């Protein structure tokens, strides 16, 4: 009997062993004690703060302040409802009621009680998650397929017209599944933080570990590069639209890496100015950054092109670029507003929408999950 059981051919045995070993090797490396390394990193961070502060002061976009709101919180003459988006495309929004699609004419559709989501590469589908489910949906809310998984987060869809993959994080770690819901498998165990597919060909995925940012080929599980990441909890991980830059943001630091993992930009906030969000401008390596300082918030630009800066009282939460990069959206929970800001100088420079929470039937302030161009 033993001989019979050992004689059974198991498909892909060799490949499975090597894939598993690469996963285990990472996990084992992450298991090393961190205390010793933390002591070594602190002086480097201290130096970085000085350098970054100088960089922010010298940054040209820091001079173009668009709007200072000193007394009233919020933009005056804000529209009471979202009548239209200032740029083409569709928004994906998450509120307490669930996941919403907002069309350019301002019409909204609730897809269902999901807590996170993202667009498929061409905006034809949405991948959504709730606590114990991953789901692929039509933009009208029809469910294509679901997978039962525990504590699903960061659903992200990538690929071409004919071949797509969805990456997500659940209790086991970082997993991928084909766009039709088949071939679900664990890619990297233990991953908890944000993940991001690199735009372009292939299936290249970035994720963060407690100590590093890692980029791997999801098809082969081959590690392409890894580099030290900013300290603190990573709040954003995003590729530029050409896939040549990767941004990692934490409250205390902003790092930008090139396609080979070399850090090409670092902009750490001065003490007391934590980063809250950052996003690459489409078709550019420029970045819009949102920071909070006490009762003030600001969005400013890093990069070559000038960016209209936007300041306000209270807390900014997110910054999201419209397709095309002519407008960016600042979400402003303190004012219960969304503010669309034209990136460059122009006649109409801002458009504000008030009562955002109520419009999305929420008690907490809604989150932007994506803004994608319309076909």
């Amino acid at each position, binding site marked *: *009997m*033993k001989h*019979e*059981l*050992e*004689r*059974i*051919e*198991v*498909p*892909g*045995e060799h490949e*499975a*062993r090597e*894939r*598993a*070993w690469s*996963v*285990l*090797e990472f*996990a*084992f*490396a992450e*298991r*090393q004690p961190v205390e010793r390394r933390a002591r070594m990193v602190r002086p480097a961070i201290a130096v970085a703060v000085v350098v970054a502060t100088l960089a922010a002061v010298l940054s040209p976009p820091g001079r173009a302040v668009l709007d200072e709101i000193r007394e009233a919180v919020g933009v005056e003459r804000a529209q009471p409802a979202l009548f239209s988006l200032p740029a083409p495309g569709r928004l994906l929004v998450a509120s307490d009621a669930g996941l919403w699609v907002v069309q350019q004419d301002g019409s909204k559709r609730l897809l269902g009680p999901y807590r996170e989501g993202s667009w498929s590469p061409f905006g034809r589908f949405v991948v959504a998650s709730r606590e114990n489910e991953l789901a692929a949906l039509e933009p009208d809310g029809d469910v294509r397929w679901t997978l*039962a998984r525990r504590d699903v987060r960061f659903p992200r869809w990538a690929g071409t017209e004919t071949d797509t993959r969805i990456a997500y994080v659940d209790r*086991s770690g970082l997993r991928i599944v084909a766009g039709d819901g*088949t*071939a*679900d*498998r*664990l890619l990297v*165990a*233990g991953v908890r933080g944000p993940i991001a597919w690199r735009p372009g060909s292939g299936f290249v995925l970035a994720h963060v570990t407690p100590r590093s940012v890692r980029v791997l080929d999801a098809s082969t599980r081959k590690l392409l590069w890894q580099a030290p990441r900013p300290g603190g909890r990573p709040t954003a991980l995003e590729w530029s639209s050409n896939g040549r830059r990767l941004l990692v943001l934490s409250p205390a630091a902003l790092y930008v890496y090139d396609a080979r993992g070399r850090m090409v930009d670092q902009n750490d906030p001065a003490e007391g100015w934590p980063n809250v969000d950052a996003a690459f401008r489409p078709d550019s390596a420029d970045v819009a950054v949102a920071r909070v300082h006490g009762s003030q918030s600001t969005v400013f630009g890093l990069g070559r092109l000038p960016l209209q800066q936007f300041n306000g009282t209270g807390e900014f939460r997110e910054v999201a670029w419209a397709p095309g990069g002519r407008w960016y959206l600042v979400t402003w929970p303190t004012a219960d507003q969304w503010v669309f800001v034209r990136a460059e100088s122009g006649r109409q420079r801002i458009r504000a929408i008030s009562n955002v929470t109520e419009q999305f039937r929420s008690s907490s302030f809604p989150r932007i999950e994506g803004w994608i161009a319309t076909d």
Partner: protein
Amino acid sequence: MRAGRDERARVRGAQRGSASDLEALFRTHWPRAFRAAYLVTHDAGAAEDIAQESFLAAIRALDRFDRRRPFGPWLHRIVVNRAIDWTRARKLRGEVELVDSLPAPEAAPAGGETLAALAKLSPEHRAVVVMRYLLEFTPGEIAEALDLPRGTVNSRLRRGLDALGDEP
């Protein structure tokens, strides 16, 4: 005895952070862990996940592992229990395999008849057969690992062997 000492040394080395010792443990125990998971689940992708996650669980628990105990049975016990859980969960989800889209194999795979006979058993019966005859647990150890009465283990073994047309 020598193999046991070597394994204890590798566990000790892995506990101290030696990746080469961990790799030696992995290369020694992966084949059986993966095969056991496959024979219970009959799904190579799931078997890979299960064996991999079992090794990860072992890594997470490595600091607490008692080196006087053999590593293999500890790992295999995790593997088989996870494989049973997976097959039960799949049954609840009602998943189906996309067999229509798979090309026909050019030749029957080795051991195909045994695999087909195993497929006729429930996952719980397959697990008992795999633990006894592939992983070489005693019936008492199987009963303890799967939290079953000893008589249930024996009856499942008997039924499994009947289905496979073999004698103990």
